[in-house]
């Protein structure tokens, strides 16, 4: 015999595994702290801290790369400028030399004469070529070219005609200069021109042209007010040999780095290192570059920018303005791909991240080992505790240290020792008590037999639950009620619950749980299903017995089979309902024919009065009076039937308000009888249906108004009535009083206490009683001191019972 608990055995969580252990939590928490700290430090190192000067290593490295590029750009600009200056100087020396000026003067003279003679260009050229000055000049230019080694060609052309006076070119190629770049740009005597362009050869190679005017020697006048500048010196430098190496060598630009020049219109002056986005190669002097850095440089600005280049690649670009001559300024762009520029930085970050990950893992490992060591004694103690719980009182926890955990293990062990002692002591005592109990049991058995007989008579059984031992004991009669045999059924909690009607099981289970938890007694009516399938109604009551700690240890109670009682009550209730219905229908249907009788009697009385003799008129009057009485009776009957079906009220009303309403309706009657009415102060509040309470008070007062001392006006007093659980109204009169034997009878329907001389149907007090009963109250009459009667009506002040299954006593 045992009660089964369906809760889990405590302590099963002890085996819940590694992930809920202290060990795991230590690893997790310490590991997380270490990991988060390392990651945070690394983030600060990378990205810096807000509000202070430290910007982080990423920013620092970026700055370093930017500064490097800036420096390279400056150096390249410097080199280019210096180199250009040298070229200018070279040409200046050549143009200013007396030798050159002398020969130019001579050749100029030949040309002038030729023109004066009207010679054509070819003839002029042959004349020049044949001159000694030409040959000397050509030799000189060859010498200069060979000396410097920078220039591919050098030429001197007549400024006025464009005829080439001397040149290192072969003659066939180059006879006339006016179409040469720079030639026409030298307009003033000091003119200097530097341009990148294509040379006049059939190949059209990109060249740098440095041009300068050559003046006639001092004192020689060309005549006709001509300018002193008589010729133009043109020197060509192959850009591939000189400018491009200048741009592409020196400085740490890396594989993707390059530098190039643009003119004011953003046209590139030198070939680009990379192909364009469409795979073609940009043609110098034709391709216009639109990238940001080139645009800024072409505008004459200087600076550094992160942007996309002509390929659409993100680049780091420094742009410079290079002023070659006062008229000519080039833009220079030095750039490098972002990917390459920041590559070392990325690599560094990757290494650092790897170190953080490895560091964190090592941290976890170390923490794990430490946690294992620290939690080991606790785990051993938990294991010992588990063994004790399973009944092994010899289990002990090893004391391996002198710290708090060691102390705890020691305390635990001494505690178990005491428990072991107590247990032995207890077992001894139990043995003694058992012997004593056995003898007491014999006596009990006898009295129990008597109880069984008593229960059989009362159709009531009893039961007892020992919560500590989880045992249920049921009396013989209790077994019988459940339709069970004591020797065939083991009364466990679940087995008993299974006997309860499925619709009631949940309610009963909840009620029992409630009772066992707070010790409130359990009182319920529910259905059971006997093993044969028969449904019985039982009423069960319990009393919970608690120990000093307020915990329920025993539950004792009774179980009574109320099936038969239920059946009768149901039958009575349905019979009553039928009667009520009959009463209502009958009185309602009676009104119809009565109305006809009444109306036609009235019509005869008004329209045929003259034609009736005295006797006929008297009879007719009796018909009219009879129908009037009949109508009052039926109205009262209807009212009574309605009063019996009033729903219990849910709110309270002031008694004085109800009395006031009733008196108002009685106004005419009060005036007619000249009655004196006195209403006491402080009437109670009534929990009643307002309409029906008013009707009841009306009936009581109307009744009182009919009775007075002979010849005097009625005197009526209305007061309050209060008792535990009920409140009401009392109406007192000074009438002749109710004879003792009549006190109950007058509340019955149509049982009049007085003769026909007093008006009324005999339903008024019956209605009062019906109203009282519907409100769980009472109505009665008693003799008043000093003569007369006191009529009472009361209403229950308790709220109607709710929801729960109640014993069927209604």
């Amino acid at each position, binding site marked *: 015999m045992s009660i089964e608990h369906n809760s889990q055995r405590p302590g099963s969580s002890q085996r819940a595994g590694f992930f809920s252990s202290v060990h795991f939590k230590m690893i997790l928490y310490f590991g997380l702290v270490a990991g988060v700290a390392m990651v945070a430090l690394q983030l600060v190192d990378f990205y810096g801290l807000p509000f202070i000067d430290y910007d982080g290593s990423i920013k620092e490295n970026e700055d370093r790369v930017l500064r490097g590029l800036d420096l390279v750009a400056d150096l390249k600009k410097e080199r280019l400028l210096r180199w250009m200056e040298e070229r200018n100087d070279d040409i200046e020396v050549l143009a200013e030399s007396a030798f050159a000026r002398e020969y130019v003067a001579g050749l100029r003279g030949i040309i002038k004469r030729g023109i004066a003679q009207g010679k054509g260009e070819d003839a002029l050229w042959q004349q020049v070529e044949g001159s000694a000055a030409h040959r000397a000049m050509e030799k000189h230019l060859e010498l200069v070219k060979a000396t410097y080694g920078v220039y591919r060609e050098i030429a001197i052309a007549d400024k006025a005609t464009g005829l080439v006076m001397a040149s290192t070119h072969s003659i066939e190629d180059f006879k006339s200069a006016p179409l040469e770049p720079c030639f026409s740009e030298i307009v003033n005597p000091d003119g200097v021109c530097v341009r990148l362009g294509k040379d006049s050869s059939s190949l059209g190679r990109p060249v740098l042209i440095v041009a300068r005017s050559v003046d006639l020697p001092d004192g020689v006048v060309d005549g006709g007010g001509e300018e002193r500048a008589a010729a133009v010196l043109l020197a060509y430098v192959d850009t591939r040999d000189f400018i491009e190496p200048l741009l592409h060598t020196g400085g740490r630009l890396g594989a993707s780095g390059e530098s190039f020049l643009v003119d004011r219109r953003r046209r590139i002056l030198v070939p680009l290192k990379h192909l364009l986005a469409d795979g073609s190669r940009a043609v110098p002097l034709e391709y216009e570059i639109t990238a940001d850095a080139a645009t800024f440089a072409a505008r004459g600005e200087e600076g550094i920018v992160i942007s996309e280049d002509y390929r659409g690649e993100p680049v780091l670009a420094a742009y410079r303005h290079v002023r070659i001559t006062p008229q000519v300024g080039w833009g220079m762009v030095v750039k490098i791909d972002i990917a390459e520029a920041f590559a070392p930085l990325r690599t560094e970050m990757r290494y650092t991240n790897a170190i953080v990950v490895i560091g964190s893992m090592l941290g976890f490992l170390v923490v794990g080992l430490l946690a294992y060591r620290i939690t080991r004694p606790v785990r051993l103690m938990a294991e010992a505790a588990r063994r004790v719980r399973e009944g092994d009182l010899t289990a002990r926890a090893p004391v391996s240290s002198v710290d708090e955990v060691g102390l705890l293990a020691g305390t635990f062990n001494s505690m178990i020792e005491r428990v072991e002692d107590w247990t032995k002591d207890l077992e001894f005592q139990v043995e003694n008590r058992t012997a004593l109990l056995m003898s007491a049991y014999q006596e009990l058995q006898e009295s129990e037999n008597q109880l069984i007989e008593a229960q059989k008579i009362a159709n009531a059984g009893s039961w007892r639950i020992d919560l500590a031992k989880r045992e249920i004991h049921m009396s013989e009669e209790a077994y019988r009620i459940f339709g069970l045999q004591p020797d065939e059924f083991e009364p466990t909690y679940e087995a008993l619950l299974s006997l309860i009607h499925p619709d009631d099981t949940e309610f009963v289970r909840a009620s029992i749980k409630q009772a066992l938890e707070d010790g409130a007694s359990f009182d319920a009516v529910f259905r059971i299903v006997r093993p044969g399938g028969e449904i019985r109604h039982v009423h069960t009551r319990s009393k919970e017995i608690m120990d000093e700690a307020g915990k329920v240890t025993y539950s004792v109670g009774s179980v009574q089979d109320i099936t038969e009682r239920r059946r009768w009550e149901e039958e009575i209730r349905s019979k009553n309902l039928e009667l009520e219905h009959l009463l209502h229908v009958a009185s309602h249907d009676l009104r119809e024919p009565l*109305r006809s009788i009444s109306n*036609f009697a009235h*019509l005869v009385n008004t329209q045929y009065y003259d034609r009736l003799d005295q006797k006929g008129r008297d009879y007719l009057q009796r018909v009219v009076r009879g129908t009037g009485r009949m109508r009052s009776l039926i109205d009262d009957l209807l009212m009574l039937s309605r009063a019996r079906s009033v729903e219990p009220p849910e709110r309270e009303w002031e008694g004085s308000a109800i009395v006031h309403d009733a008196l108002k309706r009685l106004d005419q009657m009060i005036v007619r009888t000249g009655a004196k009415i006195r209403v006491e102060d402080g009437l109670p509040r009534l929990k009643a249906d307002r309409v029906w309470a008013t009707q009841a008070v009306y009936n009581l007062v109307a009744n009182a108004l009919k009775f007075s001392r002979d010849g005097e006006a009625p005197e009526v007093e209305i007061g309050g009535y209060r008792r535990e659980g009920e409140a009401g109204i009392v109406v007192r009169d000074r009438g002749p009083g109710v004879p003792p034997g009549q006190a109950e009878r007058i509340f019955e329907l149509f049982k009049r206490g007085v003769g026909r001389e007093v008006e009324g149907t005999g339903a008024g007090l019956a209605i009062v009683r019906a109203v009282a009963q519907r409100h769980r109250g009472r109505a009665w009459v008693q003799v008043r001191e000093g003569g007369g009667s006191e009529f009472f009506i009361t209403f229950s002040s308790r709220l109607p019972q709710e929801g729960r299954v109640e014993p069927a006593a209604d």
Partner: protein
Amino acid sequence: MNPQPIEALLVEDNEDDVILIREALAGTRQIKLLAVAKDGEEAMAYLKRQGQQRNTKLPGLVFLDINMPKKDGFWVLEEMRADQTLRSIPVIMLTTSDREEDVVRSYDIGACSFVTKPGDFEEIELVMRRIEEYWGGVSRIPERRES
């Protein structure tokens, strides 16, 4: 005030009530009883016949009981409201019923007024005088139609 009395059709199965109402209407000047029908079918037959022949007339007002043998008052009301000629005739429900659902349903399907028949003859007289005052004086009804 209408110059001529309103001619009313009374639909009522209870002969006692017919007499009482007739008596009560005799005391009025503005309402004259044109005809009486004992049930719904008879009422509709009468209403459909009227206006078909020459020199017959439709009632200016209908007093309609609800609970009647064969077809009840609701049926008559619905039929009237579905008929082109009859739908404009005002209908006063005159019945013993005081049930809320009857009141609502009556107005729902086109009754102009709902009067619970009083029990006493004196009260019936009073009600008829009130109806006379209202329908013969205060309120207008469509002009009488003769075919």
